């Protein structure tokens, strides 16, 4: 195809144009940095610098306000692995992670399937979501009395069994962690359900209708059509839940105030306790590093799985 003759530009004009284009790009880049500067400054000063400082600190013997004393190598970390409180805290954190991984998702999914297309769906959704709007501190305070020896759980159990019950759910080693995880599930069920309903809304109706006409059972439809398409949403929700399980603090801090072994209830609580109640600053920094490593590794693994799944679907 013959294009209309392009007027020949003198090489000097082209060079000039290219130079201008380059300097415009440089200027644009500088303006961009100017737009980013305040955010960069805030994040570097208050978030990134502390992370670096915390890592350095975890390798020192820093105890008081004397500044960084001397490097101690892995002493703080070695101490961690010899302390029974630490292993108990790790064990309980594991319980939290598994609980936070499985329960809100399973119940949230069940609830989403139950409420989907039901009359008053919006009202149901809002009411189940409501606990999520409350602060964990307020929820913890409320449930502290729900679980109290003369609280709601015991009084309902007494009414059902006909015998007086005054069990201290939050004072016994055997029930405290499951009890607080239950409260956590109560609070996070709603957001799990809403996110899963968003995912369900994106599942196309046609293949479901077609399968139903062909006589597929509800379970078959769920297993072979809905679940594969919902998987990316499930994984996003899982990442949120697992990180929340690892870092659970507010509920534990408020609900376990009367429990002597409070520090062993999770790594986040153990870190807080050692640092701010016992002033073992460098040791606390080391606990924070261990906790962060776990969180970063697990969320990295889950994100990798998630992007694989999304690729496979596309």
């Amino acid at each position, binding site marked *: 195809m013959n294009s209309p003759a392009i007027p020949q530009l003198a090489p000097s004009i082209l060079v000039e144009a290219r130079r201008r284009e380059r300097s415009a790009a440089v200027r644009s880049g500088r303006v961009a940095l100017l737009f980013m500067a305040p955010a960069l400054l805030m994040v570097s000063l208050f978030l990134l610098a502390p992370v670096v400082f915390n890592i350095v600190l975890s390798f020192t013997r820093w105890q008081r306000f004397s500044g960084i004393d001397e490097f101690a190598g892995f002493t703080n970390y070695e101490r961690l692995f010899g302390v029974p409180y630490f292993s108990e805290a790790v064990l309980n954190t594991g319980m939290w992670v598994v609980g936070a991984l499985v329960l809100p998702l399973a119940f949230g999914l069940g609830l989403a399937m139950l409420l989907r297309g039901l009359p008053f769906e919006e009202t149901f959704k809002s009411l189940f979501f409501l606990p999520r709007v409350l*602060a964990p501190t307020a929820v913890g305070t409320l449930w502290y009395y729900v679980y109290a020896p003369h609280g709601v759980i015991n009084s309902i159990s007494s009414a059902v069994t006909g015998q007086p019950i005054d069990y201290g759910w939050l004072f016994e080693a055997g029930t405290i962690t499951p009890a607080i995880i239950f409260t956590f599930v109560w609070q996070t069920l709603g957001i799990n359900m809403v996110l899963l309903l968003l995912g369900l809304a994106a599942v196309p109706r046609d293949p479901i209708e077609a399968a139903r006409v062909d006589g597929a059972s509800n379970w078959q439809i769920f297993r072979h059509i809905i679940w594969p398409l919902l998987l990316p949403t499930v994984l996003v929700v899982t990442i949120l839940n697992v990180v929340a399980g690892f870092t659970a603090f507010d509920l534990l801090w408020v609900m376990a105030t009367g429990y002597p072994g409070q520090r062993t209830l999770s790594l986040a609580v153990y870190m807080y306790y050692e640092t*701010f109640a016992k002033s073992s600053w460098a040791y606390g920094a080391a606990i924070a*590093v261990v906790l962060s490593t776990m969180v970063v590794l697990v969320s990295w693994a889950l994100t990798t799985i998630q992007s694989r799944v999304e690729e496979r679907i596309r």
Partner: protein
Amino acid sequence: MGVNVEDPDFIRELMARERRGHAHSTPRLVIALALLIAYLVPFYYLFVTVFKSTDEYLSSGVLDLPRSVTPLLDNIVQAWTRAGMGQAAFNSLSYGLLGSAFAVALASAAAYGLTRLRLRSANSWFMVIFAGTLFPFQMYLVPLFFGYQRVSLMNSWLGMLLIYTAICIPFPLLVLRNYFGGIGREIDEAARIEGASEWRVFVSMILPNAKGPLLALFLLQFTFIWNDLLFSSILASSPEVRSIMTALQSLQGTYASTGPNVVVTASLISSIPTVVLFVLLRKYFMSGLQLAHN
């Protein structure tokens, strides 16, 4: 499988299935209602408790209806004075409103720089800021504690505002970077040819196009700041600057001699702003979740 759509048996079968589908929703509704009632028991407990005096609370069953509504006033007064909730509510409100507004403003400016201008290695710059949220908060506590002591920000209003602003930047940046990236390029190109400055393009072209997400992000970050206990309990424990959640927690401590009725009333008071916001702006909350989800 051949289906004759004019076959009357087939049509009858389809209609029967359709009816069964509707009939199925009744047992589902009953199950959902039963679950909801069980789910709301703690709220029921909350509402009967705020109307009881300490004596009545200790002498009656916890789920009994209150004898009168008047003790509510006394409970509020007690919670208010014992925990200094007025000051704490004012503090948290100012941290929440200003911190969230600043964070969303700074994040949107940064997102503009990342997406609408020719920035080399924009992705790396984004990762620098986003790295701020990869770690659990425990990673910041010790350094902030000492840093704040060194520069006299400990127990100060400004210190709290600064950390809340910083910690609320990365998430809105993530969302707005995606959102701004999706706005058509024509509008700002046109404005630039007309000679508008980048600042003008940002303020009068891009921001008005993102009102929904900006409001949703503001709400989410406000709720986060209002609900925070961790940072406040470490960096601001004095009554003049402490947050509402720290005040609530101090009431609930083991040695506090405050009755459950007062503590529960305090937990209700501390929840009012976020619940009201949720009820009024439910649509934006939900779309905020959708943002987080994408």
